[in-house]
């Protein structure tokens, strides 16, 4: 493998996963905060809120996972190597 491509791939993978965590992290924090507010306001709806929250968190999580997939592609299945 060309050392330049290798270095660029490693850097791109690290940056890619790092940047792709920012948005979902903010979104998850926001969602969790809102869910806690909801539970505080209506404690009897906790079960429903928790289920929905977990589902939504999984969706946001998947955005990071997309970044992770790209990083993994760069590391393990680099098409330019």
């Amino acid at each position: 493998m060309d050392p330049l491509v290798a270095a660029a791939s490693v850097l791109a993978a690290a940056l890619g996963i790092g940047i792709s965590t920012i948005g979902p992290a903010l979104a998850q924090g926001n969602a969790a905060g809102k869910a806690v507010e909801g539970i505080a306001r209506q404690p009897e709806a906790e079960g429903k809120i928790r289920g929905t929250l977990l589902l939504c968190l999984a969706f946001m999580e998947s955005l990071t996972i997309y970044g992770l997939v790209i990083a993994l592609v760069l590391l393990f299945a680099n098409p330019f190597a």
Partner: protein
Amino acid sequence: MHHSSLLLDSFNWFTALPLASLEVGQHLYWQIGGLKVHGQVLITSWIVIGILVIVSVLATRKVERIPSGLQNFMEYALEFVRDLTKNQIGEKEYRPWVPFIGTLFLFIFVSNWSGALFPWKLISLPEGELAAPTNDINTTVALALCTSFVYFYAGFRKKGLGYFRKYIEPTPVLLPIAILEDFTKPLSLSFRLFGNILADELVVAVLVLLVPLIVPLPVMLLGLFTSGIQALVFATLAGAYIHESLEGHGDEEEAH
């Protein structure tokens, strides 16, 4: 495909440890007819399918009115997937879709957990290693395409060719986006599952490489949790897509 990798090279000096190794992208290839297949994925998926079928047969061999043991457990599982389907598709039409969504959930769930709980690594293959079937992109794409087929089938069965009205229903301007949606749905479904499971196994493998004892346990537990949630998410989304194509825009809007 390139099996050698950067990470692998950098971990080469770890391979002196016989406890664990990191292998990504190495497969046991079988030749069936003119097709090349990943043997290790098929083996584990057959084991998962075998577990499911055997447990189901054992549970329903003698159905009793007052359930006990295995029947009780499987009835719990059935009630769970029934509730899941009912929540997504609605009381009126959920029944025919319970088998599909339930099988989706059970297969993904058992696959994910088998990857974490079953000591696959003790069985050595000539090439590649046994792991959860869902950490192979072929499996997840296959499941996602099955979901696509089923929601198209659901739409056609309900509305015939009128199903295509949903692409131009609010305004034809959104037609490209509506068509694009049909591609992004299976793409995101399959990548979500694949990425999560692969990431789990990689994180556990890397931790085991660094510290072989005890330290990876919390991450493994987190992995079990994530695996369960991912199975739930996959099944829920499949239900949501089926509901979407059953309902569409129009006649049943006022039911809500």
